[in-house]
């Protein structure tokens, strides 16, 4: 088992033996913190009754198949990008946010001065 090859070289298959004890996933569940936030936000919205899990799943299926049918050559697949796109669409459909508003807010965040998330003693 330790010699197994990675049959899917386009995905980041972190080394983990098939026989590793089932104490944990044995690899990173999320590749970046934003993926975890997008995941957690979606489930929290389901719990809060803002939308149903199945409504989200239908959007996710549509997003994934759209990407598979039409993406730039060489663009690598990222599951949570599809997830986020599905979430944004559903929020827009529910009238909670609209894409333009989100774009504007994201741009505002991008233009924060460097070091905005660190606190430094005034000196």
């Amino acid at each position, binding site marked *: 088992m330790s010699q197994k090859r990675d049959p899917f070289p386009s995905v980041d298959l972190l080394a983990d033996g098939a026989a590793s004890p089932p104490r944990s996933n044995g690899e990173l*569940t999320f590749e970046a*913190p934003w993926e975890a936030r*997008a995941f*957690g936000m979606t489930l929290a919205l389901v719990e809060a009754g803002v939308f149903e899990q199945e409504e989200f799943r239908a959007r996710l299926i549509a997003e994934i198949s759209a990407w598979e049918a039409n993406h730039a050559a060489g663009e690598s697949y990222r599951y949570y990008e599809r997830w986020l796109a599905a979430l944004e669409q559903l929020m827009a459909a529910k009238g909670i946010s609209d894409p333009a508003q989100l774009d504007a807010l*994201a741009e505002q965040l991008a233009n924060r001065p460097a070091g905005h998330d660190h606190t430094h003693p005034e000196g």
Partner: protein
Amino acid sequence: MSDPALRVEALEALLRERGLVSSETIDAVIQHYEHDVGPLNGARVVVRAWTDPAFRTRLLEDGTAAIAELGFGGPQGEHMVVVPNEPGIHNVVVCTLCSCYPWPVLGLPPAWYKSPEYRARVVREPRQVLDELGLSLEPGVEIRVWDSSAEIRYLVLPERPAGTESLDAEQLIELVSRDSMIGVAHAEPPK
């Protein structure tokens, strides 16, 4: 799409502002799925089925109810169907449409499970894919591929390895890997 990290941050700010979801709630959900839920739950189900024939019968008849007896359930675990490996029959699970996965018993899926390559190829050429993942099956073994549909989440019940009669439940649990419950590995005999 602009930087997804910024879009997520913007979305979260919006939800907070509208009072829909707090950051603390999101933290709690992530914490739960990263640390509390994982394949250990599924391994407990498998070992119970190995050691308790009545439970095994209930598990195969109504997976959701039997798994709930052990205290596991929740999103993506509402419609569980457990498919048992037997001599000559090997089961493997995929979700070709959206990578759904039985979170309550396996935690969140590994990267390869979500990849377009696995989702497409395991249906077309399961023997080849299993071989590449390190599981070589005899030519006579029938491979059944289970594609999660509408609401069903599948869990593979691997065969109990030979020579494990003297092991107790905690020792048996160590033999049940996540991959053996997806169906891309066997439960391994003790080393």
